[in-house]
């Protein structure tokens, strides 16, 4: 380093003397103070202004002596000299780094939120699918119960009806058989009708009070165990979702004005009403007022306990 320090001043002095100039001549030519020229040649940069100026002085000095200023400036740059006052890059850089960290954190948080959103959407979609499948299942369970007995009855009647004239006209022997078959048919009728009534009983116990709800997404087929009876009277159209304490969804769907629903389950029920004002609730024949739970958009979520 001392080598290069000697380099700059010495090179200036050497070139100046070769050109036959005195320090005064140089000072006059460059319009600088003699002290500045002396300081440059003795490399006492503390006496000189900021590096911006010093570099300029070196450049014009080099040009005067026909030296290449870049070489001299390189030597000057290698030395320690007072940094300009405005260099406050350190804290600023630190802050920039911090900013970058923040940026990364923000990005990560955004990604996590996005991921959660996507998972939620997917699970929500699956939930709907499951419910839809459940409904289909319920429907398929109900259908054979409803239709097969009727069809069997009709088929047995069809079978028995042509048999009767046969028994009348052709043979007496056949009559007991026919009678038997009719009896069997009658018996089967009874036997088959029994589950129907059972089914109807179950349905009645669960909900069905009128036929209007057939188009609704009611989960009437879901068997909920429990003793608590809830009665919903719809004075207005409303969405309802009721889950009992076992986690069984006992009622879900949009119900029209005028519908009355009764259901059985085990309290407490968690209830979600879409239009709270339009629904009157009774639990175990005692009315329940959902008004305190009503939100601004007239929806409400609350737990219905046995009274």
């Amino acid at each position, binding site marked *: 380093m001392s080598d290069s320090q000697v380099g700059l001043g010495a090179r200036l002095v050497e070139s100046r003397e070769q050109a036959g100039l005195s320090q005064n001549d140089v000072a006059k030519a460059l*319009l600088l103070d003699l002290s500045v020229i002396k300081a440059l040649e003795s490399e006492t940069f503390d006496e000189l202004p900021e590096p*911006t100026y010093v570099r300029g*002085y070196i450049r*014009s000095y080099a040009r005067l002596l026909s030296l290449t200023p870049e070489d001299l400036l390189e030597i000057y740059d290698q030395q320690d000299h007072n940094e300009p*006052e*405005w260099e406050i890059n350190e*804290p*600023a*850089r630190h802050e920039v780094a911090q900013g970058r960290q923040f940026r990364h954190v923000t990005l990560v948080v955004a990604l996590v939120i996005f991921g959660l959103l996507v998972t939620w959407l997917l699970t929500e979609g699956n939930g709907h699918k499951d419910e839809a499948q459940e409904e289909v299942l319920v429907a398929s369970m109900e259908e054979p119960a409803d239709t097969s007995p009727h069809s069997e009855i009709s088929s047995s009647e069809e079978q028995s009806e042509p048999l009767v004239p046969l028994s009348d006209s052709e043979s007496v022997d056949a009559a007991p058989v026919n009678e038997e078959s009719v009896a069997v048919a009658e018996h089967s009728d009874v036997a088959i009708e029994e589950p129907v009534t059972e089914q109807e009983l179950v349905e009645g116990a669960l909900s069905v009070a009128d036929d209007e709800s057939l188009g609704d997404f009611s989960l009437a087929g879901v068997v909920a165990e429990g003793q608590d009876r809830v009665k919903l009277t719809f004075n207005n159209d409303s969405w309802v979702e009721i889950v009992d304490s076992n986690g069984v969804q006992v009622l879900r769907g949009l119900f029209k004005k005028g519908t009355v629903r009764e259901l059985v389950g085990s309290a407490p029920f968690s209830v979600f009403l879409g239009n709270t004002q339009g629904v009157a609730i009774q639990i175990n024949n005692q009315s329940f007022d959902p008004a305190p739970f009503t939100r601004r958009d007239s929806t409400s979520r609350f737990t219905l306990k046995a009274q």
Partner: protein
Amino acid sequence: MFNSLLGFLSNDLSIDLGTANTLIYARGKGIVLNEPSVVAIRQDRGPGGPKSIEAVGIKAKKMLGRTPENIQAIRPMKDGVIADFTTTEKMLQYFIKKVHENSLFRPSPRVLICVPCGATQVERRAIRESANGAGARKVYLIEEPMAAAIGAGIPVDEALGSMVLDIGGGTSEVAVMSLNGIVYSASVRIGGDKFDEAITSYVRRNYGILIGEATAERIKHEIGSAYPGKELLEIEVKGRNLSEGVPRSFTLNSNEILEALQEPLYGIVSAVKTALEQTPPELGSDVAERGIVLTGGGALLRDLDRLIMEETGIPVVIADDPLTCVARGGGRVLEMMDEQGTDFLALD
């Protein structure tokens, strides 16, 4: 709140919106863009048809003077201020987007823009609005010589007079600064463009040959000088001979260009002289002792420092990398702003 969130995703930018070149300094990155302030606009289907941006920057500059009827290459800045508001906005938008290439969202950086100290309130407002329109979240304006001084590494915060001469494409600004403030400033509408014009008209007058803007600029870069030098440089160029009407090639030398540049050069010199006259004596003596600092692209004109030195009798120093001084200074101001608030400089 949303803005501050977006702020994390954008860099703070310092923009030197110059007549000739636009430079952008991004915080923590340095100079990220240096392109000519030129926009090429395509307008199909006649004069009332829809306009679209054909090219911006270097690509558009190549089109200057070489466009067909439906494309127009425009320099939206003139004399340091906005001449074409919408085009400037589009250009800024393009540049800001370009320096945020890897960004997912629409960039909305804080932007510090340099304005000539001679700009009127209306012109300042136009610059501010166009930056806002280009997507800036917050716009700060700083006077060009102040940014140039800071970028050149001059200690403007000390109780010490410093003079800066910033020669840009459209304007030249001279200012005396002390204690973070401007004591005197003046702006003359002479810059690189005027040099080019002077060369064009000199060639037409003396040779009867018409040359384009780009050729004039090339002549200036290669053999232009402000002071008679030891060696004589020559350049061969081609232009349209006015009397014959056909392109002809001819040779120009540096002395001829020196002669051509006399008028604009003396405009600048007289601005410096006026500034020295108007400077308070204490600050004037500081300037005389330390020298005038030259920044801006005009400082690259050969021997300009020598001319000013001879004319004023005061040492003249050329800043390192004079082209980027203003943008770098603006960048440093942005960094300081976060530490010291916006009060330390007279930012509009």
